């Protein structure tokens, strides 16, 4: 009898040496090593003498960022003024991009989400119209997102020549797509209770979406928009490499002359701007969230 009861005890499973999590990590690592091998990454290339020397020089410069030109030329504007100006141009570019992308993204998000759709649509024409709009918006978003802003930039610049407008349109296309995708996801994650309550007391579909979904989605939407503004700032810096005179342009010029201390000043300036944005966005988010409590 005693033996039987021991046998019927639930057997505790001994965890295997390579459990599920470890095997996932193992496969990821294996695939990564194969990839590294295929693209020709050689560990000793990283530590070749020449690159080590340049790297130490580069990182040494990080301790003492330049406050004046390393090779001053008479008659040029003071260095720090140039740094501030390039930051302002970068910020302007980012804000121009965002002020176009956010409205377009919001409209695309509205078209691509099902959050405001009536629960049962009677007429088939209405239904198919909504469906087509939905599919068109979704495919446009996927397509716009899948091409990098710099490639859109190259297309527009080769087609129309280098101009600020071309660059802004180029960044706006993928950014409005990404914003639309995230906005739509946020709309769909919200609790539907308020919306259905408004519907029940007779409000229209649009109005009940406006008062039932958007207010609760707002904190998330704002913090994502701030993150995108940060990305727009980085995109603006990158567009310096195709000729718009943002901070990236200055970084390229300084780096081409091996003035690494100047490069670090620009990098720190970019960092401070982004840190400031992050702090501001955090403040807004906290004050919006505390309202709900």
């Amino acid at each position, binding site marked *: 009898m005693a033996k039987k009861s021991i046998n019927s005890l639930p057997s505790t499973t001994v965890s295997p040496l390579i459990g599920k999590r470890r095997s996932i990590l193992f496969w990821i690592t294996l695939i990564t090593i194969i990839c590294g091998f295929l693209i020709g990454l050689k560990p000793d290339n990283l530590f070749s003498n020449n690159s080590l020397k340049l790297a130490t020089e580069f990182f040494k410069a990080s301790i003492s960022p330049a406050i004046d030109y390393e090779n001053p030329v008479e008659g040029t504007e003071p260095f720090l003024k140039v740094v501030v100006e390039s930051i302002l141009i970068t910020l302007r570019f980012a804000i121009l991009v965002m002020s176009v992308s956010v409205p377009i993204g919001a409209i695309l998000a509205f078209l691509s989400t099902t959050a405001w759709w009536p629960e049962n649509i009677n007429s088939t024409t209405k239904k198919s119209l909504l469906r087509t709009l939905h599919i068109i918006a979704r495919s446009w978003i996927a397509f716009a997102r899948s091409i990098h802003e710099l490639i859109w930039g190259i297309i527009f610049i080769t087609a129309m*020549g280098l101009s600020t407008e071309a*660059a802004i349109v180029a960044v706006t296309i993928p950014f409005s797509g990404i914003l639309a995708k995230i906005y739509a996801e946020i709309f769909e994650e919200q609790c539907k209770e308020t919306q259905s309550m408004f519907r029940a007391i007779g409000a229209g579909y649009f109005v009940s979406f406006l008062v039932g979904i958007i207010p609760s989605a707002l904190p998330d939407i704002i913090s994502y928009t701030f993150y995108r503004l940060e990305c727009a700032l980085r995109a603006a810096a990158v567009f310096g490499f195709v000729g718009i005179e943002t901070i990236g342009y200055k970084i390229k010029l300084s780096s081409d002359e091996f003035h690494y201390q100047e490069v670090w000043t620009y990098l720190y300036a970019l960092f401070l701007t*982004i840190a400031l944005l992050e702090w501001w966005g955090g403040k807004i988010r906290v004050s919006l969230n505390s309202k709900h409590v």
Partner: protein
Amino acid sequence: MSKENQIRRIKELHRNRSKSTIVRFSLLVLLAVIAWSWTAKSLHESLISKEQRSVNLQNFLEKIIPDPTRESGKWSDSLPWVFKNLHDDGGLIAGLMTFGLATTAIWISGILAFMILPMASKNLATHRPLGIMVSNNKLTNILWVIVNRVSRILFLFTRSLPEYVLGFLLLSILGPDPWALVLALAIHNFGILGRLGSEIIENNNSETPKAFISQGSGRFNSFMAAMVPESFSRMLVYYFYRWETCVRESTVLGMLGIASLGFMISEAKAGRDFDKMIVLILFGSLIVILGDILSYWVRSRLRLDKS
């Protein structure tokens, strides 16, 4: 309630709604900044005249039609040409290169971020981990504040550097080696993964890690044995989400001069082979969409595991 009372009540409710000075102030600043950026002088004085621009555009639109189609007028004739471009000229290999760069880069940043992120999470790197007082030594208290601040700033700093700029700088240091691009992607994503990861740890409210620490376990053990197993799937979800953006980013990094898709695109542009350029761009977009689908599939499976 009479009609008047109703109106009065509505007005009262409206007056008493919650207001936030910071939100209002931010709105004003935002509007002012938008107005400034639209009205200030042009960012780039274009040297090209309007006529030249429309000639350029016409030229471009003519040239993006594939060569065989331009000759015969049939789109089906271009299919072998597309195949030749992608297969014989190395487009497919360049596409694989894009995946390879992204995969290695995200692995490096994942490992590094994982090592630093417990130090950046506010609830662990303090003298009171998870609200439990473990020591009351002034010096160690200050030390923990410094550790936390430094690691957070490290994440923010690396995050603020764009991959493309990093790639450019690293190529000038390391020379034309795939390491430059991999490290560029890895450094930026290290900052992002670290921040996202430390947020996961900060939002972990379960009792197990607390029990660990109150029983005398250290921060590291409590992190490894109680927090990581609980949030493993969520961390992997972020890992794959960043992998997806790495794929997107590495399609352009090649433009800096390493043989990959971006390099072929800029070469086609320089040679004014606009038709080839468009084919390569569309191929790149296909790769990004493939990456998206793959990562979406993995992430949705990971989410299922969690529940």
